[in-house]
């Protein structure tokens, strides 16, 4: 399928992830042991045969650049098309503060949009953990003759005050869209992933720029519920959204459920990520590992339980880790004990330390900290 172009928004986030997003954009937050959040949408695009992907960034994108490189791990390092990182200030007349909304972000890269080779565009945020069958979404988009297809989830995974919800008529058309309501009982949650034609997108970007409207939802969807045919695509699979540290912890723990893993890591549509040539994980003679998801390159001599370990984590003898998420390169020294902890990249927990959070309030430790 080469008639679909992929756009991912990665310019900033409203999410309240505290320490976890200080050194980076939400899209490059580590998740599921060896992934960054952007891997999920990016792989969903690539697995549908999309060859050209533009990623719109604005600030805090160093770690995203490190992760994506030339795009070769997603087979997006190509002579024609492939992966394009679209930073701000790419066009001379642009260049004030952060993008106020996705339409402004798109206007900021309008030169790029004009050169899109494909007739259709899929766009969405790069910070959702899901395995979206994009080929099927396009198929349904074309079959329904919709102007815009909005990908929705029946399972409410976000908090209402940060999410958007749609109501659907009997004929399957979207009749209402509410943005950040205080409650959303019967509606479908919009994942803010859309398929539309390149032409419609270009028209809307121009219209919004001319009318100083920044948001696709407010500027395009809400005013055009009647004039455009808006159709939902209901994604039944797992959806993980990240709007708080608590969310991040809960979504990580979701991965210990085999049904969630089977859906998210479907071998038919594998989630690709940066290859780091880590060796296999080594378990020492007295190691214990139960109900855990462990990436390659770890060295475990202590105990691990109900936890998610990223690549290269070291757990020394006598250390205990339970109900925790340890990102790349975390070192837990001998005799230390961690419970309900989220340790960011390269955190070092020294001998005998005890760190304890709670399932509703996990303790997040900033990148490179030494405890």
């Amino acid at each position, binding site marked *: 399928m080469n008639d679909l172009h992929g756009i991912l928004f990665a310019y900033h986030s409203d999410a309240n992830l505290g320490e976890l997003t200080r050194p980076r954009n939400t899209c490059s937050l580590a998740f599921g*042991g060896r992934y960054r959040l952007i891997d999920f949408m990016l792989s969903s695009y690539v697995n549908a045969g999309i060859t050209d992907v533009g990623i719109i960034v604005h600030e805090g994108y160093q770690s995203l650049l490190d992760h994506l490189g030339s795009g070769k791990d997603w087979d997006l390092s190509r002579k024609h098309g492939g992966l394009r990182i679209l930073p701000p200030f790419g066009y001379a007349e642009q260049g004030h503060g952060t993008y106020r909304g996705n339409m402004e972000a798109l206007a900021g890269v309008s030169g790029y949009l004009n050169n899109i080779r494909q007739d259709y565009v899929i766009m969405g945020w790069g910070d959702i953990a899901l395995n979206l069958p994009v080929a099927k979404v396009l198929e349904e988009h074309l079959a329904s003759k919709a102007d815009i297809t909005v990908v929705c989830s029946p399972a409410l995974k976000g908090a209402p005050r940060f999410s958007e919800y749609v109501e659907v008529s009997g004929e399957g058309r979207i009749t209402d869209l509410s943005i950040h309501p205080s409650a959303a009982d019967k509606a479908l949650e919009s994942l803010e992933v859309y398929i539309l034609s390149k032409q419609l997108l270009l028209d809307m970007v121009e219209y919004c720029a001319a009318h100083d409207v920044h948001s696709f939802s407010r500027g395009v969807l809400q005013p055009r519920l009647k004039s455009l045919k808006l159709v939902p695509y209901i994604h039944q699979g797992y959806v993980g959204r990240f709007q708080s540290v608590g969310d991040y912890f809960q979504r990580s723990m979701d991965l210990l459920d085999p049904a969630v893993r089977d859906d998210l890591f479907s071998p038919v549509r594998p989630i690709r990520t940066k290859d780091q040539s880590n060796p296999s994980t*080594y378990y020492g*003679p007295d190691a214990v590992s139960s109900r*855990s998801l*462990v990436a390659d*390159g770890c060295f475990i001599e202590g105990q691990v339980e109900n936890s998610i370990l990223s690549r290269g984590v070291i757990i020394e003898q006598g250390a205990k880790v339970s109900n925790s998420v340890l990102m790349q390169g975390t070192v837990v020294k001998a005799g230390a004990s961690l419970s309900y902890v989220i340790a960011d990249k390269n955190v070092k927990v020294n001998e005998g330390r005890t760190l304890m959070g709670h399932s509703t309030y996990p303790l997040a430790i900033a990148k490179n900290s030494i405890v």
Partner: protein
Amino acid sequence: MKKEVVAMLLAGGQGSRLYALTSHVAKPAVPFGGKYRIIDFPLSNCVNSGIDTVGVLTQYRPLELNSYIGNGQPWDLDRSDGGVHILPPYQREGEQGTWYKGTANAIYQNIGFLDLYDPDYVVILSGDHIYKMDYSDMVDQHKRTQADCTISVLEVTLEEAKRFGIMNAHPDGQVYEFEEKPQHPKSTLASMGIYVFTWSKLRKYLIDDEANPDSSNDFGKNIIPNMLGAGEKLMTYRFDGYWKDVGTIDSLWDANMDMLAPRSSIDLRDNEWPIYARTPIRPPHVTGPDAKLSHSLVTGGCRVDGSVENSVLFHSVTVEEGAEVEYSILMPGATVKAGAKVSYAIVAEEATVQAQATVGSAPDGSEGWGIAVVAGGVTIGEKAVVAPSAMVREDVKGGEQV
């Protein structure tokens, strides 16, 4: 474009002493150490040594090896100038193509490839050893001593020396005699099958050797003795790190077990000299509520619910509840079902050991004991028993004993 050094990796051998493990793949493509294949070691050594042009000579069952190497990207050998090249035998104008008759003939047939890069030095490597080595250091010594050929050697015991090509050398390292598998070794310096040649010299000896119909066109048997006889300068290069030939079932099993003790073998976690591999796309491995893991390597995509001790698990291996695996190597995609027991065994790719079956057993001191091998894709039926040192190439029905 001219290159100072080009490496030629001999990867055409069948590895017949690995029996069922190489019935479908060439030896260099045999999985090793949880994440790797044997060829990753020489290839990574090349890249880490700054050699960016590598010819891989293939002949026996090359398909899997070819697709594994691909464009060389995992080893950073996808270069616009140089990079990795697969070199199968080919046909020339006016003659019938022939297979590679021997190691020297394989290089002879690719003189044209080497001439494209017009190297000063050629490094000859084989695809059946596990080691980390800086070839650039060896090339430096070769240049410094103005040798025509430098041979990497390893100190072995007098007993082991009988199984190797032995270099008898002066104290300054110059070789005066070469003996292939001597009954009464005079020295304990064994050739590791790694050579650096001055290309102009080697080129001449390859052409001369090819003209001799009685030659077996082999480096150890012909080229080295011929050069020695003609008074060329052959030097030894002393290597004292970990080096293991993995040409037999026992040595392959042994070397895999060595990877569990990085302090005494190769440290695969060492970032200074990384070993690269083509990694399949798999999620992290998962351990179940009753999993027991001890002194083992576990790789992405595995699912462990049973007990695993002193073993190496490659990617996508499943060990079900109540299953016991000890001192074994489970290659990619192998499955050990509930209650089965696998000990001192190699279970090859995509093989299945059904519930309650037994494969191999701990050493009991008896004569016939050995590592049991289950070939790729084979199914061992429920409650079947595979005896130690058995080599299972076909499905075993439930309850049967082999």
